[in-house]
C-alpha cells in the first residue's frame, strides 16, 4: 500500500486528509496524480492545478519520482509559513 496525504487548501477542496492505494498500478508520482484525477471531476480539476507540490517520504520530488509500497506521498499547495 501507498499512503497518500493532503494538506491545507488542497485537503479542504478534496474533503479528504488521507487515503491509501495499492501500489500495483502506479510507478511514479504522475501515475498517482492520474489515478486520483480519475476519481471524479472535483479531483480532476484539483489535480489540474500546476502549482501543487509533492513530497515522498518527506522529501520534495517531481512527477517522475518512482514510488514503492510503504511510501508516504503528500500533495499540498505552495507553502506560506514564516
Amino acid at each position, binding site marked *: 500500500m501507498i499512503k497518500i496525504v493532503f494538506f491545507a487548501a488542497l485537503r479542504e477542496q478534496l474533503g479528504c486528509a488521507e487515503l491509501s492505494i495499492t501500489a500495483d498500478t502506479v510507478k511514479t508520482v504522475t501515475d498517482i496524480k492520474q489515478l486520483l484525477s480519475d476519481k471524479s471531476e472535483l479531483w480532476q480539476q484539483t489535480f489540474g492545478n500546476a502549482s501543487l507540490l509533492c513530497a515522498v517520504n518527506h522529501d520534495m520530488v517531481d512527477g517522475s519520482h518512482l514510488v514503492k509500497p510503504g511510501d508516504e506521498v503528500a500533495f499540498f499547495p*505552495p507553502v*506560506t509559513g514564516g
Partner: protein
Amino acid sequence: MSNQVTLNKDKDPEISIQANDFSLADEVALLEKENLTDGAVVTFTGRVRNRNNGNVVTTLTLEHYPGMTEKSLAKIILQAKERWDIGRVKVIHRIGELSIGDQIVFVGVTSEHRQDAFAANEFIMDYLKVKAPFWKKEKITNAGQTSENWLAAKTTDTDKADLWS
C-alpha cells in the same frame, strides 16, 4: 516509518515546532550560554500583523506537515552551516491559532563575525518561507463580513530564495 521514529527519539535541539509561545530572552540566553567564542547574535522574530493585502486580520491559523517540517528545517540549517561560519542555531515555528501581535517564528544564529550570522539568519528565513511545509489561513473582516482564506504563496518569496542559489 522507522525514519519518523528516529526523528522523534533524537529530537533535534535546533528545531522546535510548537503551539505554545516562546520567550525571545530564553532562546537567546541558550544561544549564548557557555558560548564565549561567538561575538555576534542575530535574531529574527516574525509576528502576526493586523493587516494583510488591505484586509483586517483577526486570527491566523498555522497548519504544517509533521515530520516533513522538521526534516526540511534540518536540511535548511545544514545548508546554512555549510555556507557560513556560524556557531549555534535555533529555529522555532508555532502552529495552531494565533492572534494579532503573536510571535509566529523565531530564528537565532550566533557567529564569531557578524556577517555570517546576518547572512545565515536571512537565508534560513528565506528558505523556510518557500521550502518548509507550513500553511497560513487567515480570518479576516471586511465590511462587517468575516471570512477565512488560505494565504497564497508570493512570487517575491520564491524570487528572494532564488537569490541565494
